[in-house]
């Protein structure tokens, strides 16, 4: 058999499978009535005050801020909504719209309005959003049934394993990648219903899941799909609700919470610092996340950076220190990462966080996926002087939807660079650029100042007080117990 025949057979099997299986298990219930009647005047007034900046005066998603945010604000005129409790292709219920307005959309600039608006105000906004429906769909074919999510099953390793199998079988990895980092072969160049670019979600970043990252939320997304996006409903492909729960449990198991820190602590090791970024020692080193923002101060201002966080680990031995920097990228592109340090420590004073200033220059270590390591001294964005790498070395690469880069330098500082010593805090800042997002020069995501600390091993003196006080108390107790027992015996 030729390979094309095999492929045809495989495809036929895939499409035949749902037909032979049971009908989709999607229990539904009638939509609840809307508790608050529309007051068009109030709705319009609230909308003008709180929503036009992004969603536009006519609800087309073209407000003055629309060009400056990713993802773009929703265009209400086509009545296509992602996060719903209704079947694929159907309109959302009023409660669904109320839920989005109240809770916001994680990973976007849509805030949770329940913090700022009363329930009644939010219901008026629901009515106003529906009023922008230019096709009259909310009148003609409103949702009558909503999906019953039900209670999530107990999450067991077996359930997760089953979900993992389904993830392979149903080809979730084609968009979301084998490790869920949004890096599947089809991830590139996706568009939504409006022709705007859209990226598959990175399953490791639960805090960015649009519909929420509870297992119930993930199950709902599989069941209803995201209308207007390439994310379909899986009720036909995975008819058994139990299987969809398994997949939800697996996806949930891929994500972790963000772990922000002010200090990146480098652990001390006795041997060599491993050159392999996947080595066990790096796993044990522990990590910290550093959130990033677009560089919007210096021209060209960059409002829509591809990356929102960088993860870092650090190790040191008696000779050198090394940082392992990690970031997920659905599209390999030619990324660049930079670590910024002051040229000279100056108490708690630090250089300007964007490439230093005239009085306090910065030392910048850059690693680029194409050109490798470069180094510069900068005293401002426009005053950058390349310098030799010196004792600095770097190695990095891209694997499984993730970049990992190791930057390594001797502890001892040479000319024009800070020295690292155990217990000494050194300011650091991060800059990250995604080649596929056209990021170069000042178009980047960046952080303000944090600290890198080569953490000294716990000194023996640290045990003095705890052990001293503990033993003193024990001695006192034993003395008292002995005395009291003697006198008790005597009294008896």
């Amino acid at each position, binding site marked *: 058999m030729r390979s094309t025949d095999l492929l045809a057979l495989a495809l036929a099997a895939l499409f035949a499978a749902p037909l032979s299986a049971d009908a989709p298990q999607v229990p539904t219930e009638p939509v609840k009535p809307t508790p608050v009647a529309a007051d068009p005047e109030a709705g319009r007034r609230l909308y003008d005050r709180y929503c036009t900046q992004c969603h536009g005066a006519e609800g087309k998603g073209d407000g003055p801020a629309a060009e400056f945010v990713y993802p773009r604000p929703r265009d209400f005129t086509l009545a296509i909504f992602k996060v719903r409790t209704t079947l694929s292709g159907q309109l959302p219920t009023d409660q669904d719209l109320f839920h989005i307005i109240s809770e916001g959309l994680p990973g976007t600039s849509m805030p949770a309005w329940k913090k700022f608006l009363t329930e009644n105000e939010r219901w008026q906004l629901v009515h106003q959003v529906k009023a922008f429906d230019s096709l009259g769909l909310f009148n003609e074919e409103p949702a009558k049934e909503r999906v019953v999510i039900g209670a999530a099953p107990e999450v067991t390793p077996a359930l997760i394993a089953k979900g993992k199998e389904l993830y392979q079988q149903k080809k979730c990895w084609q968009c979301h990648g084998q490790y869920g980092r949004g890096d599947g072969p089809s991830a590139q160049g996706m568009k939504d219903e409006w022709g705007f670019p859209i990226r598959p979600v990175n399953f490791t970043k639960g805090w960015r899941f649009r519909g929420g990252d509870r297992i119930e939320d993930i199950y709902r997304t599989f069941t209803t799909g995201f209308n207007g996006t390439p994310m379909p409903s899986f009720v036909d492909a995975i008819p058994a609700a139990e299987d969809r729960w398994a997949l939800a449990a697996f996806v949930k198991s891929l994500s972790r919470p963000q772990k922000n820190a002010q200090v990146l602590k480098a652990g001390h090791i006795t041997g060599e610092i491993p050159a392999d970024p996947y080595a066990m020692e790096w796993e044990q080193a522990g990590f910290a996340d*550093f959130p990033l923002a677009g560089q919007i101060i210096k021209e060209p201002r960059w409002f829509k950076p591809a990356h929102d966080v960088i993860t870092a680990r650090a190790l040191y031995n008696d000779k050198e220190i090394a940082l392992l920097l990690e970031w997920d990228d659905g599209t390999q592109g030619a990324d660049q990462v930079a670590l910024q340090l002051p040229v000279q420590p100056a108490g708690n004073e630090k250089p300007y966080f964007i490439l230093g200033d005239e009085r306090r220059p910065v030392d910048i270590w850059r690693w680029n996926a194409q050109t490798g390591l470069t180094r510069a001294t900068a005293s401002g964005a426009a005053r950058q002087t390349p310098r030799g790498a010196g004792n600095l070395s770097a190695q990095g690469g891209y694997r499984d939807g993730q970049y990992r880069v190791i930057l390594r330098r001797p502890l001892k500082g040479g000319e024009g660079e800070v020295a690292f010593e155990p217990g000494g805090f050194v300011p650091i800042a991060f800059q990250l650029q995604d080649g596929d997002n056209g990021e170069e020069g000042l178009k980047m995501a960046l952080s303000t100042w944090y600290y890198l600390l080569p953490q000294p091993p716990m000194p023996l003196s640290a045990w003095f007080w705890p052990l001293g006080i503990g033993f003193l108390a024990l001695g006192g107790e034993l003395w008292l*117990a002995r005395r009291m027992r003697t006198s008790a015996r005597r009294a008896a």
Partner: protein
Amino acid sequence: MMARYTLYLAVALWLAILAGLKYLIHPPMPASVLMIYMTLSTLGILLFVAADEARFQAFLAPLKSVFEGRAPLAAQVLVLAGIPLLLGWGAWLRTAPTWDAPFEPRVVHPEPPSSFSLHGRRIETANLKNPLRLPDPVQLEKYTQEGKTIYYQNCFFCHGDALAGDGHFANAFSPIPANFRDVGTISMLQESFVFWRVATGGPGLPKGATPWLSAMPVWQNLLTEEEIWKAILYIYAGSGSTPRTWDEEAGHEKH
């Protein structure tokens, strides 16, 4: 009766007070204040227990039975080993190095300078007023709406859609961006102060306010004077606050 539980009740009460002070009060109180309250609570409980001889004996009874060896062996070991461990652990928490970031004292609302540079001109802070805060409501509304557009094309990424300091870039910064809905920010400041902060940004802060920690741009490099005033009109209107004014101050002084 209840007497045999006196010690346990006292310990439970002490723990309840600790939990209440630690978890029910917002914002959390400083550790030193908590320490004072807990010392007072300890003394109070001991005084109450010791005030009555019978109660005091009931309180001591379980301890006595441990020390005199009448209590079950497990209880004896638990108490005799538990107390030193607890004390040692407490000492560890207080003395072990934690490697937290160095403490950097920061003046949140520094004294504004008497004058500052704006597009190459000197601006006197004392007499600075928002020239666009007009009595005509139609004009004022027009400028405020223009300010809104400026806000959402420049400021909202950090200061947030609802002006609560929680924009999608906000958590990349420490200190976090100002929350304009907080009564401790713009509503207790005059517009001249806000103008100075916006126009000169982080780098314009005096040393005591740690300019190197602020990510606030120097907005005069990106906006005109009029645009800054319009944006200021909007942040007050949008957050539902009003600027502090000299007239009010004078009024207060007259009282």
